């Protein structure tokens, strides 16, 4: 079943055409990768998906409903969670609190009821804490659960961000360059983690990534973007041998091509 379908998305910043009619589909249960050189418009695409940007034109349907009709904060309750390219945790809050924020939309947060500590508030808070504790264990964060997130090493922060994203029990998880800034070994572990997240939690994953090895080993499907357009799409092997993709990655002036 098609979970996410993006059709003909356009987005322009001043003179820069960041997205020019991009469209693709993600099937339920897939790990789909969005790749392309820097500045290709991948992050912009993600920002359109999470409604941080309004596309100038185009449609995004998620699980049969119109995503563009939703407010940015309502994307999560539709079933889409995301991580950011430059890890964007709430740095003064503890790891536990960060993960809990991920489940904000599922916790009772009526201010008046909260001030009165209404039983429904306590109940939903307790349930959320239980779920957060499970996720914290799953991502091996128990030792740092009460530390402020801003003070943690980078790879740990990435795991916290993953846990926060999963806290809302999303159907689709968007990962923007999850391997950025990680070393070889950490990237390998990340690949395993992403795969196990899919199988254990049944989450469909759409990721932007530069690390080709990671992309090629974990993805079911790869979309390639360049200068705001989709230039290729298919299973990893097809894409690897696509002439246009090779040109986009290696530059298209014959003189510049490595011998």
């Amino acid at each position, binding site marked *: 079943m098609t979970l996410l379908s993006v059709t003909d998305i356009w987005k322009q*910043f001043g003179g820069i055409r960041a997205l020019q009619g991009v469209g693709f589909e993600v099937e339920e249960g897939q790990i789909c990768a969005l790749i392309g050189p820097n500045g290709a418009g991948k*992050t912009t695409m993600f920002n359109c998906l999470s409604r*941080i940007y309004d596309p100038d034109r185009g449609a995004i349907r998620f699980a049969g409903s119109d995503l563009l009709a939703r407010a940015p904060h309502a994307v999560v309750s539709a079933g889409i969670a995301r991580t950011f*390219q430059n890890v964007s945790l709430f740095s003064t809050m503890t790891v536990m609190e960060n993960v809990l924020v991920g489940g904000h939309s599922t916790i009772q947060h009526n201010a008046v009821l909260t001030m009165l500590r209404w039983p429904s508030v306590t109940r939903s808070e307790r349930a959320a804490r239980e779920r957060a504790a499970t996720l914290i264990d799953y991502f091996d964060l128990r030792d740092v659960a009460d530390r402020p997130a801003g003070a943690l090493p980078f790879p740990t922060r990435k795991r916290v961000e993953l846990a926060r994203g999963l806290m809302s029990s999303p159907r689709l998880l968007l990962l923007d360059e999850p391997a950025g800034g990680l070393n070889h070994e950490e990237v390998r572990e990340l690949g395993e983690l992403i795969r196990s997240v899919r199988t254990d939690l049944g989450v469909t994953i759409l990721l932007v990534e530069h690390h080709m090895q990671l992309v090629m080993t974990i993805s079911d499907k790869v979309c390639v973007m360049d200068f705001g357009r989709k230039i290729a799409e298919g299973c990893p092997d097809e894409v690897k041998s696509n002439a246009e993709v090779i040109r986009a990655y290696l530059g298209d002036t014959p003189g510049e091509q490595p011998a």
Partner: protein
Amino acid sequence: MDTFIEQVVSGVMTGSVYGIVALALVMIFQSTRMFNFGQGEIATFTTFIAWSLMLHMPYALGFVLAVVIAFGIGAVLERGVIRLVEDKPAMSGVMVGLGLFIAFNSISASIYGPEPHHFEQPFTGGPIDIGGVTIGRHSAYLFGVAMLLSALFYAFFRYTSVGLALRATAADRTGAELMGVPTGYMLMLGWGLATAVGAVAGMLVAPMIVLTPNMMFFVLLFGFAAAVLGGLDSAPGAVVGGVIVGVTQNLVGVYVDDLVSALHVGSIRDPNQYRDIVAMGLIIVVLALRPRGLFGRAIVERV
């Protein structure tokens, strides 16, 4: 119609004071990305110093000395205080500004007392008549000074190498440093100049309203408004912003009465009391509609 023109003209005049204050605020914002909430009070303080000086010497000398002292205060503050919060987030800057505000206000009050002082009127003589519109001589000269100052600053930033270095520092600190600009001194210079400009504003305002420790409260606020309206990134913008605020204020003072009677909701005893309120309300509305000012550019946050 005549009242209208007269009010606009006199609004332009008062507005030019706001413009001068805005100029100072913009300079500081440009160099240190900070709103100097203490600007007005430092100006008041230096105006008091000028007042003391002028007891013993002619106006011109006192004026110049006070400007020099103000420059020194600004430079020392940058070195001693601002540098400590420079790489801290904006809220620290706001708080330091408030600290300066309350500190200088209290210093002026404790040395000179709350009672009003008479500050010398530099431009004496009868009102000037321009094409049937009469303007107070002081206001006219005030306007001239404001125009001159903003032209000077414009030229300074545009055409001198020091001005270029200042702009480079403001735009990209690290880059400027790599190019060999002594950014530390540039920031001191920026603060010094801004404080000096503030002092000029203070000394020009003082004869119009009386010199008291709180004299700059509203002036500063409208200066802020002018700076924000002007978009915070150009000297002429600041002055134009000031003029807009001044004119609005004046027109409100005159026409609020007409408006109220036109709406048949009674009459107003003293329209002038609405000037500041409505002007401030307009500022809040403009801020809300155009958060970066009338001339500022919109900002898209990059993620």
